[in-house]
């Protein structure tokens, strides 16, 4: 059983009071450049997932509370929530640095640029 903490309204509750929204930080390629989206990019957007074993970044919704979406960093092995953060934000810097595998690759440029989303 996960006990989830809403980043927006502070409500705390069982996972049944919340809704899991899948992997975080997936950008739709057609939003940036609709005319030049390759099939591979579209595949990445629709189907490729980081599937991290360990620290993972994902979206949750305070389904039975304030109804707002937020981000969470969670460990997929220990189930521990490391942090929650706003839906338009990047994770805390320490967690971006702690990320491994595909997440580490994903956050590399963003760490270099600073922490704007």
């Amino acid at each position, binding site marked *: 059983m996960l006990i989830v903490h809403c980043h*927006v309204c502070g409500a705390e509750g069982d996972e049944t009071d919340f809704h899991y929204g899948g992997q975080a930080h997936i950008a739709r390629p057609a939003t940036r450049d609709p005319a030049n989206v390759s099939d591979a990019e579209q595949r990445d957007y629709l189907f490729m997932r980081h599937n991290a074993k360990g620290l993972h970044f994902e979206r949750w919704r305070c389904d039975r509370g304030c109804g707002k979406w937020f981000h969470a960093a969670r460990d997929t092995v220990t189930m521990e929530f490391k942090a929650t953060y706003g839906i338009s934000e990047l994770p805390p810097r320490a967690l971006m640095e702690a990320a491994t595998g595909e997440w580490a690759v994903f956050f590399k440029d963003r760490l270099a640029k600073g922490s704007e989303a």
Partner: protein
Amino acid sequence: MSDAQFETALQGRETPTGLTVDIREMTTRGMIDLRGLADDTAFMAAVKQALNLDLPTAPRTSAAWGEIQALWLSTDQWLILCPRTKTEELLTALRQALAGIHSLAVDVSDMRTIIRLEGDQARSLLLKGSSLDLLSADYEAGTARRLRFAEIAALLHIVSTKPDVIDLYVFRSYADYAWDWLIANGRTVADVRQFGKQAVPAT
């Protein structure tokens, strides 16, 4: 054709006896769904002018002035309660005050059914169908929050305490289900102590 006639969802359902709590349907309440940005001072001022009360901005709280109440639903959404007969008048006043401001006010009086629970067992009974720690002191008079109750969406408003008076709002189509659930589960004392102090095992 006969004239359209308002009927409440639980009209005709007998009020059961022998339950551990008193339950009844609140039939004369009007409800307005109000949306706007809490950090928009013009919006907050306009609402204050129309309702004579400051909208609560702290999560899961409520505010009241006379027969008008405002329940916090989200960071940008409130449920305004008033006598059903005054809904239209209040809605007109709200819309006039909010003209030109990014906001929304809609009469949703028929959207939800309100079941009032009274008695010391009210919290324990609701706890059977919810994952919230309703026995915690955080749930004081005035608390309003949405929750998952008996697998359906509901809104809980603790009207007063000692003894507890709790209003349970469910969507109208779930009224029968919620009513039956309360009757089925309210027959026996709900000795639920979830999250409460655990007995220390003898060593």
